[in-house]
């Protein structure tokens, strides 16, 4: 008995170390990124030189960056809206409608989940060039929506599969017309999947590079702006932007966790 618990404790110790190492691997780099955004030195080397807001100040005076930020919001919000408008009906179609070519449709829609973004990017670039579309933020939005529909479809579809169909029958039984059933019963019950996939789509679109790289015109999104400055060299200013983006991600995570807390079921 004693040896068993000792063994278990030793096992837990080993596992605890593994966990700690993995968490360090995941979070130390992020911590370093944040720390150097406050470091009073233009090079990213140890030892630290002291605290400064300087990098944030230059940031807020950088009009290109601010414009890129605005563009990113515009793109991410529009793309998220589009993914919902297309992804939700697609999930419903996959869940409950039989139509010819359904298997092909499903595979096609879900493909971008694992397909490198660059393929989506260049294939759409070819299309836009062929039909003579001017590359712009709008083409980026279409590209993001295409790549991210898969997120909405998988999440909403999974929720629909778990949805108790007798709820909808009960609504109809109680006199609800189909649209009333949809808005008063179905929608509230897939709410968490909708919000979750919308938040995720927004975040991924906000950070997207490969598709944007090929589809954007003269306008830059924030990651594209950072990308192009990066190639010129690394500066603490990027750490400052990064820290703000991480802060934003944190807000999104908290939002999604608090809004998606399982409440019914």
């Amino acid at each position, binding site marked *: 008995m004693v040896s068993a618990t000792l063994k278990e404790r030793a096992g837990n110790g080993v596992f605890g170390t593994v966990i700690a190492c993995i968490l360090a691997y995941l979070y130390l780099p992020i911590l370093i990124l944040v720390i150097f955004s406050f470091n009073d030195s233009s090079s990213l080397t140890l030892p630290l030189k002291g605290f400064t807001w300087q990098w944030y100040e230059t940031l807020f005076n950088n009009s290109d960056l601010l414009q890129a930020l605005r563009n990113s919001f515009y793109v991410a919000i529009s793309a998220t809206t589009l993914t919902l408008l297309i992804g939700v009906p697609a999930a419903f179609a996959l869940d409950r409608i039989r139509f010819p070519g359904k298997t092909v449709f499903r595979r096609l829609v879900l493909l971008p989940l694992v397909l490198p973004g660059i393929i989506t990017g260049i294939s759409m670039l070819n299309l836009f060039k062929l039909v003579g579309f001017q590359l712009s933020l709008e083409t980026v939005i279409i590209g993001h929506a295409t790549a991210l529909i898969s997120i909405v479809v998988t999440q909403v579809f999974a929720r629909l599969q778990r949805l*108790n169909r*007798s*709820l909808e*029958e*009960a*609504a*109809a*039984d*109680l*006199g*609800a*017309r*189909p649209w*009333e059933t949809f808005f*008063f*019963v179905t929608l*509230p*019950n897939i*709410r968490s999947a909708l919000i979750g996939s919308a938040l995720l789509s927004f975040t991924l679109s906000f950070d997207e590079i490969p598709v944007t790289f090929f589809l954007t015109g003269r306008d830059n999104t924030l990651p594209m702006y950072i990308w192009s400055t990066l190639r010129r060299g690394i500066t603490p200013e990027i750490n400052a932007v990064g820290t703000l983006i991480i802060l934003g991600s944190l807000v999104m995570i908290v939002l999604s966790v608090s809004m998606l807390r399982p*409440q*019914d*079921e």
Partner: protein
Amino acid sequence: MASIVKFDHVSKVFGGKIVAVNDVSLSIAEGEFVTLLGPSGCGKTTLLRMLAGFEAPSSGQIELAGEDVTHLPPYKRNVNMVFQDYALFPHLTIQKNVAFGLERLRMDREEIGKKVRATLDLVDLSDKADRKPHELSGGQRQRVALARAIVREPKVLLLDEPLSALDANLREAMQVELKHLHERIGLTFVMVTHDQTEALVMSDRTVVMHNGAIVQVGAPAELYDRPATTYVADFVGTSNLLQGVVQKVNGVAAEVAVGSASLRCTPRGEVAAGQEVIVGFRPEKLRLLGASEKPDKDWNVFEANVGEVLFHGSSVRMRCKLASGEQIVCDMQLGTSAAASGIPEQGSKVRFTMDPASVPLFTEDDRA
């Protein structure tokens, strides 16, 4: 009595080949408590769902209060259902759940509030009005489902295995509660169940279904005492079913050879000497004869060896073997004290006696 529901030659075929309901005609009177009874896959649930409007019949017609509703969608029918899993809306409070159906009627808010309160009172859940379904116990959820359905004052209340999710004690209590509710509000109830006790306890009339068709319709006592087929005899209660050959027919009685014994029975229809038949009798219709006791001269008497003896509390179930090898089951009510009643021991030889009137005969046609 006016009939409120009428199935007229209704059939339902799924996917072009699976016949779920096969040419069912049935009429249900206003205020009746009717149970559709049968094992899973017998078509009882499909029949109920067609009445609710969730499935459209492949052929035939369904009438509700004199109106043809065969192709009416569920939301236009004045029937309401208590679902097997209750199907309470998880995102709404109890009060909102019950109000849901009334809101769809564009009823005025105050009126809705009043009705919801009255109905929650009726099912004794007024104090839970602001809770969500997941905060309630199984029995309470069941009552919410009931309240939500009856608050709309439907012409017919449909119950799909309403008690199957409850544990045994609660189920018994709810059987009585449902029966009382039926008496109090006078609605027509149509319930689906696979539990014959439930059907016998609760309903005015039970419809026994098998393979998509109706086998027998009748009051509980009628089904139990005069089952139309061996299937009903076996599904409703327990029956000893033994193969035999008719020896002789005289009037209403027939003498049948069952193994080495000869039994006097009451055939349901015409039988002739030499015909192969099945003899059926309930385990509790057998009476144990004391060693020196004289049987009634018109009654059947036969011997058997006692096999297993199972103690059930108020009764004893014995598995016995006839001399020719047939197995039978016999139930014996115990008197004031189990010990005093003299339960036969395993391996002992006993004599049974039985009234010929309680031994129905089934012919080939009655086997289903």
